[in-house]
């Protein structure tokens, strides 16, 4: 092959190699970005799945329609008091007719609704909380990890909790009582 042909081939191969290397680098950067994005998603999923809520105590009042309970946040993350309306509270009970009922109760800090639940206080190991304390009117503050939330829940007046009962609470990010 003459020097002309050799030069042409060499030039073409060099150009192709350079283009391939450049493309490879771009592809690697893109893959890296995709990988980072995927890791971020996995972190988000992880945040949603962590921790649980533990019912420390639960008591029924003599009116047979009011319950008070203390629920501990065990690693479920900070829950703003302002988001309490996104907490689900379901009470399951047996009424005087002997049938089992389940009711979802709305958050009702003023206690005006026929049925609902409200937050009474947040404590840490039985004493006043120091981390992000909630105001007495429950308008701000956080329910932090390891803190206990005292709640009062009531069902409608045409129903009664005659016998056994249980509570299910689910936080805004999907963490629930066990």
């Amino acid at each position: 092959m003459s020097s002309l042909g050799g030069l042409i081939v060499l030039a073409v191969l060099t150009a192709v190699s350079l283009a391939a290397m450049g493309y490879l680098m771009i592809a690697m950067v893109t893959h890296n970005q995709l990988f980072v994005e995927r890791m971020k998603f996995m972190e988000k999923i992880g945040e949603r799945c962590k921790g649980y809520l533990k019912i420390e105590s639960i008591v029924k009042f003599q009116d047979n329609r009011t319950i008070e309970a203390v629920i501990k946040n065990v690693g479920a993350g900070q829950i703003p008091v302002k988001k309490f309306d996104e907490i689900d509270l379901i009470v399951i009970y047996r009424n005087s007719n002997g049938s089992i009922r389940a009711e979802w109760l709305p958050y009702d800090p003023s206690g005006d609704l026929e049925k609902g639940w409200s937050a009474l206080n947040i404590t840490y190991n039985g004493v006043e909380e120091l981390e992000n304390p909630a105001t007495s009117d429950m308008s701000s503050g956080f329910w932090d990890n390891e803190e206990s939330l005292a709640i009062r829940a009531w069902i409608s007046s045409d129903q009664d909790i005659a016998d056994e009962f249980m509570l299910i609470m689910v936080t805004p990010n999907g963490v629930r009582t066990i």
Partner: protein
Amino acid sequence: MPIGSLMTEFTLAVAATVIAATLAGVYFTSLNQVADLQKLQVLGLKEQLYYRCDIIYAHSSEGSMTIKLWVKNTGFKDIPRELIEKSEIIILSRDKVYYLLYGNSGNSWSYRLLNDSDGDSRWDPSETIEVEVHLGKTLTSGDYYLKFILFNGVKSEYSLSV
């Protein structure tokens, strides 16, 4: 240099160029396909993560023709009414399978938003819907396996005993 030899060299150079270009083309196409696949995978992951739900609790009793489900939006995006209504419910029991679509007749399901604090009638993240499943016949005592399937195929499952 004889003209014949020059032509041969020229032909060889052109052939080499064509082969190199073809190989490069195949290589680039493969790389493109890999990148596209990765992008598709992330898009799929995004959609599965953005739209998720969880059955918090289900309740019914023997002899009842309805089942109540409380389903929470545990995703990162709000779901408009039209897409909520595209969800499907499958109920499996020992002797029967129910496949239910949204509606108001028998063998269908309906819902209401429970804590729509912003009042936008959309199922926002952290909000819960109460789903009422209307069955064409009464429930007998036994175990039931419920599946709530969102429009994108993401499902939440729950075992219910009545």
